């Protein structure tokens, strides 16, 4: 195995593209090192991207924020601007692992891991976040929603490196929330999760809603119908029940050691309801 601390994104992309063997990108390393420890993965090349200038920075851009691929989630959680604008995105990112893991792990790493249970991903997708990608053929932007393609799989081509994600500007009276279910209070992988991003009208009815579910399908999924059901309502109980049912309808989970199909399906709806109410309150809505 070789270790390369790349000095530019271009150098990283070129090295990854040129390596015929297995490669891994190292940002926080909280997944990569676990894979190395298990012996299931033996990369020929590891490219550490943390020394690329600017990659560990959060910058304001077009009323939103661009978050570098190597920003540890603990640092993200200390950024007052992002926390105020996208609290649901940050709370998802901050739920990953322990305090120790937070000191290293990144949202982009969570995204590139390709797990449908990644805690950072539903919030990013609900936020319509866009990833900036540098590859051997240059730079492109791609919605985060289009990156995961299946468990452990992404749409990134060989040599492509995500260098940042962009969280867009928000209107007033908009907010988001993320909830996951785990058997303990910490240190587990989500058994089911839900992120909800809402915009409210002046009369406190929902103007726009995006509901995203995790750990209930091969990828994180957008529950389109659940979002539509919320629009025009003040998230009364009947609306929430219909919204939860719509979440259950699109959930296609599996039975495994962490949960059953029935449990995941039901819990996805429950969490979506609860996250919607939190987002509603955060957006300034009162019933």
């Amino acid at each position: 195995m070789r270790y390369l601390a790349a000095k530019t994104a271009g150098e990283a992309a070129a090295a990854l593209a040129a390596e015929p063997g297995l490669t891994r990108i190292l940002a926080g390393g909280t997944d990569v090192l676990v894979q190395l420890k298990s012996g299931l993965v033996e990369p020929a090349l590891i490219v550490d991207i943390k020394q690329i200038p600017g990659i560990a920075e959060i910058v304001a851009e077009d009323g939103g924020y661009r978050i570098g691929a190597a920003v540890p989630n603990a640092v993200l959680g200390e950024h007052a601007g992002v926390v105020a604008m996208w609290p649901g995105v940050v709370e998802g990112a901050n739920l990953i692992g322990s305090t120790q893991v937070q000191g290293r792990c990144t949202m982009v790493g969570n995204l590139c891991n390709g797990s449908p249970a990644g805690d950072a991903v539903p919030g990013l997708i609900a936020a319509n976040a866009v990833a900036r990608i540098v590859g051997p053929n240059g730079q492109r932007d791609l919605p985060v929603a289009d990156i995961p393609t299946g468990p452990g799989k992404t749409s990134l081509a060989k040599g492509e490196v995500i260098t940042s994600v962009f969280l867009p500007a928000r209107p007033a009276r908009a907010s988001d929330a993320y909830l996951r279910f785990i058997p303990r209070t910490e240190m587990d992988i989500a058994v089911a999760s839900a992120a909800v991003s809402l915009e409210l009208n002046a009369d406190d009815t929902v103007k726009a809603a995006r509901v995203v579910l995790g750990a209930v399908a091969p990828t994180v999924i957008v529950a389109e119908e659940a979002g539509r059901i919320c629009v025009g309502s003040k998230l009364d109980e009947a609306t929430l029940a219909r919204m939860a049912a719509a979440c259950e309808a699109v959930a296609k989970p599996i039975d495994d050691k962490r949960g059953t199909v029935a449990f995941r399906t039901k819990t996805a709806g429950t969490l979506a309801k609860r996250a919607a109410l939190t987002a509603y309150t955060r957006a300034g809505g009162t019933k």
Partner: protein
Amino acid sequence: MKSIPVSTTINGDPYEFLCAPDETLLDVLRNRLGLTGAKEGCGTGDCGACSVTLNGRLVCSCLVLGAEAGGAEITTIEGMADGDELHPLQRHFIDGAALQCGVCTPGILVAAKALLDKNPDPTDEELRYWLAGNLCRCTGYDKIIRAVQAAAAEMRGA
């Protein structure tokens, strides 16, 4: 595998070592530098026994490559006491019987200190969530929480 030369600072002292590209910082500390205070309980970031700080951030040293330590400032349990003077956390852990077998203790002390450096007056709940990545199988955490709070109170008073 070609070894990588690394220069780093640990507990204020300069260190130089060679490590394999896939060697963890924990293995470097324990097997190359003789700093065995950090323990490997799992090797996957799930137990916290290998906790150290890296450039001021609390991390699991099993989830850091030795190669990443170049130019970094690292602190370990071996650097917590000031010579013979125990840190208040260390003293309160002994006085409060906050350790039984003691193998998780170095990691918990390092983690607790990182919290108190940031937040000198945490609630029990904040403390419990901060320490959730440090497994202790002996104590049920009760006396650990009490000892950290006792140390925090003393440090606030000092």
